[in-house]
């Protein structure tokens, strides 16, 4: 049962952030009981919405003094339950910390508050011919604070790398309210150890990032986007392996399976994928104009050699956006075919993709579950989407067991339990699959260095 906050504590928080920005009434806490992972629901004791680093610092000082746990929250799009509240904790949300503080086009750097939405940063830097490279499929909604905490990736991270490659400086409020600065002004490896690198991916367990400095990239001169349509996932999987091993360097290679195609085509974002195709690949090349057509032609040959029924090419920016839509909106579109959805996230060596996909289909059949696949094929980052109905208790248990089997499978072929969504609460139980006790202890100690009292996002990642 959720405990309410002692009135005096609530009053002190209100004095810091203003009374409208502290939520304590139980009725109003319901909206915060889940993030993007709806299989779990826990209402927090309170939600605090500060606006500045200073306010975050004071809020954390009060909560720390009272020994109250803190759950940082961005947009709540996380898929591993990272922002899932605990019933005795308080959410500190960054929704009001949404200002872009500076754009330095000369040095190609931007500094933002953590609540700034990923896509908004790219939009704001467009006039300078720049953009922010990591592009999670949720980029229109997720925050940069969440991206930093999860070390998020996206389709184009195949070529450009994930969030950690772009974060150059951080202002962080520690559990006790102390404000510290790591890196800054483009100096990734500041004097001493790389604390920025350590913080990125810390899933809200090390501190609250309140200012984030990131590196921007100049927009590529040209882009070519292909859509390869296949009869089977296996054929598409082979095409991926061939493209990468032929030495091509695509910016993105994404795969969408039959079930997903059907869901997307039934949604408002219908992208014109034929619904009888067994799988679709979205392949993109970008860079200087010279050579792009060559690359695209070679990729097309790889697809055809692997048995593609058809390869389409986007002729305009609109067509390109259309081809991507089917991929980017896939998760939401799944809501059309099932009430609930568990998105798994695991990485396997690319060469093992075809066999792993085949085995996942079998696991689905064994447990009587529908599994739809849509993922970053280029770097072997799988996202099996298990469809279910939470009202069916028996199905819920089968989902649990199937998930575990998929994870074990991925680890057994040399993969790992997360590609980009983080461990959070959902995959905490799988940690022993990839880490031995010594490593787990190191993780606990690293956490202790930042948060000796264990008040930040307790129960997440490792126990």
């Amino acid at each position, binding site marked *: 049962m959720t405990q309410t906050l002692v009135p005096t504590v609530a009053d002190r928080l209100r004095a810091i952030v203003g009374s409208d920005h502290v939520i304590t009434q139980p009725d109003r806490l319901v909206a915060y009981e889940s993030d993007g992972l709806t*299989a779990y629901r826990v209402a927090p004791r309170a939600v605090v*919405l500060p606006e500045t680093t200073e306010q975050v610092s004071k809020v954390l000082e009060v909560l720390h003094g009272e020994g109250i746990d803190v759950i940082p929250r961005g947009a709540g799009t996380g898929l591993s339950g990272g922002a899932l509240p605990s019933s005795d904790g308080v959410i500190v949300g960054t929704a009001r910390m949404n200002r872009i503080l500076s754009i330095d086009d000369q040095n190609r750097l931007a500094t933002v508050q953590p609540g700034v939405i990923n896509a908004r940063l790219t939009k704001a830097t467009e006039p300078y011919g720049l953009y922010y490279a990591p592009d999670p499929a*949720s980029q229109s909604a997720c925050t940069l604070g969440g991206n930093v905490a999860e070390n998020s990736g996206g389709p184009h991270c195949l070529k450009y790398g994930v969030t950690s490659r772009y974060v150059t400086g951080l202002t962080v409020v520690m559990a006790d309210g102390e404000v510290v600065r790591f890196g800054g002004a483009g100096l990734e490896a500041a004097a001493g150890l790389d604390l920025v690198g350590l913080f990125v991916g810390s899933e809200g367990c090390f501190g609250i990032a309140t200012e984030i400095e990131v590196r921007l990239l100049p927009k590529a001169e040209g882009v070519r986007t292909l859509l390869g349509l296949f009869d089977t996932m296996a054929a598409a999987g082979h095409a991926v392996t061939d493209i990468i091993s032929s030495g091509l360097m695509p910016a993105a290679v994404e795969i969408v399976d039959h079930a997903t195609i059907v869901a997307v085509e039934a*949604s408002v974002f219908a992208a014109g994928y034929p619904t009888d195709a067994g799988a679709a690949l979205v392949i993109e090349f970008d860079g200087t104009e010279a050579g792009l057509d060559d690359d695209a032609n070679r990729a097309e040959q790889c697809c055809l050699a692997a048995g593609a029924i058809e390869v389409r090419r986007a002729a305009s920016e609109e067509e390109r956006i259309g081809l991507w839509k089917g991929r980017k909106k896939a998760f939401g579109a799944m*809501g*059309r075919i099932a009430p609930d959805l568990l998105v798994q996230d695991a990485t396997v060596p690319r060469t093992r993709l075809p066999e792993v996909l085949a085995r996942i289909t079998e696991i689905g059949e064994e447990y009587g579950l529908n599994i739809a696949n849509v993922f970053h094929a280029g770097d072997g980052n799988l996202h099996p989407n298990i469809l279910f109905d*939470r009202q069916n208790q028996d199905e819920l248990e089968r989902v649990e067991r199937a998930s575990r089997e998929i994870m074990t499978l991925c680890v057994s072929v040399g993969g790992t339990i997360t590609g980009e969504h983080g461990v959070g609460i959902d995959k905490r139980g799988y940690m022993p699959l990839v880490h031995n006790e010594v490593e787990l202890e190191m993780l606990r100690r690293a956490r202790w260095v930042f948060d000796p009292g264990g008040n930040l996002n307790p129960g997440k990642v490792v126990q």
Partner: protein
Amino acid sequence: MAGTPVTLKGGSLAGALEAQRERLLPCVHCGFCLPACPTYNRLGDENDSPRGRLHLMLAVVEGRLDPSSDAFQTHLDRCLGCRACETVCPSGVEYGTLLELARETATEARRPDVFSRALLTVMGSRALRALFFLGGRFMRVTGLANVAVRRLSGDGIAGKLRFALAMLSATEEAGLERHGRASGSGAWVSAADDGSSLTPSPPVGSAGVLHGCVQDGLYARINEATARTLDANGFDVRVVTRQDCCGALHAHGGDLTTARRLALRNIEAFERVGVDWVVVNAAGCGAAMKEYGVLFEGDAMEERARAFSDKVRDISELLVSAGPRVGAPVECSVAYDHPCHLMHAQGVTAEPLQVLNAVPGVDVRVVAKADECCGGAGIYGMTHPDLGARIGGDKVAAVRDTGADLACTPNPGCMMQIGAGLRMEGASGEVVHPIELLDQSYQRAGYYT
């Protein structure tokens, strides 16, 4: 750690919402709708986000939240009903429909305030409405509304009254005649001179125009312009008597019973005349009438209502289907804003701009963030003065930033809201409907003689 999977509790106080579990389930909690929501963007509270509001509805349906609770009442009430969340939702969640049903449940659980009830009563009755708008026109003609906007203070009751009167004074006709005649020589070319079609194309069907409540009361000129421009584009315009208010205000306010009564009257009136198209020049009314089928879901009337809805078109859609004919120049610049109930509820965005394209000389400047609500949302400015003023203020600033001569938007509610906002800031605040410009252009081209 309390991360137990959820089990459902039985029991429900959910009333109208109860039957809507199926409509709620497609929401996968992805959060894509959050950045599209004007209230969430300004308040940062997830209870004031689309996903949060849907979650509150689900909690009511699941019997975990009382519909009379502060959370359910306040946060649903604070929703603008702009449906920007629907446009971005990959799961196709029918937020607008759910909102209406949730509001019915909310008003059953707790009576809305006197002010809102009074307004719905007035709009739901032809006689009261006539009286109400007569008073309005009197205040407008005598200039009393304008004086009051200048004199009243901005706080409390006086502030609300001032805003209401500013909305009223914003319905004044813009002096379109003066634009593009600076030389006084009638220097514009007639459409005939540049070879564009002057002879009307053969009739493209019969059309009846919805008069509406606010349009009929304060914007009769727009209804007339609608009929004239349709006629000039070859439509056979028929007079449809005994029609009524579309019921959108009632539906949005949770009074679905009155909304159905009004809808039925309109269905009967238009069926009686037997037109091919039901033409609407108010985005809010058009959206509601295109959804009459949903309003009568599960009722014996459903099929008839759906057939009616299939005939409903925004005036811009119909004109674009027939061309529209190009008129004579009206030299002016307009700041164009998309009405939510056209863009998000009906998915109509290009057509009004195409209509403006048929008026040579108009320099159309789409305002920044034109996809965001102006804060009009019925009488939001009066029921939520602070938040309404913030949302409205941002829109007014965006309109002023264009530096255009006039504001232009195809929905009376938004015209009043934007016009009021401009007037409160002391700007001239002229706002036109695209049809008014087309009508002026046609007059100059001599299409009506």
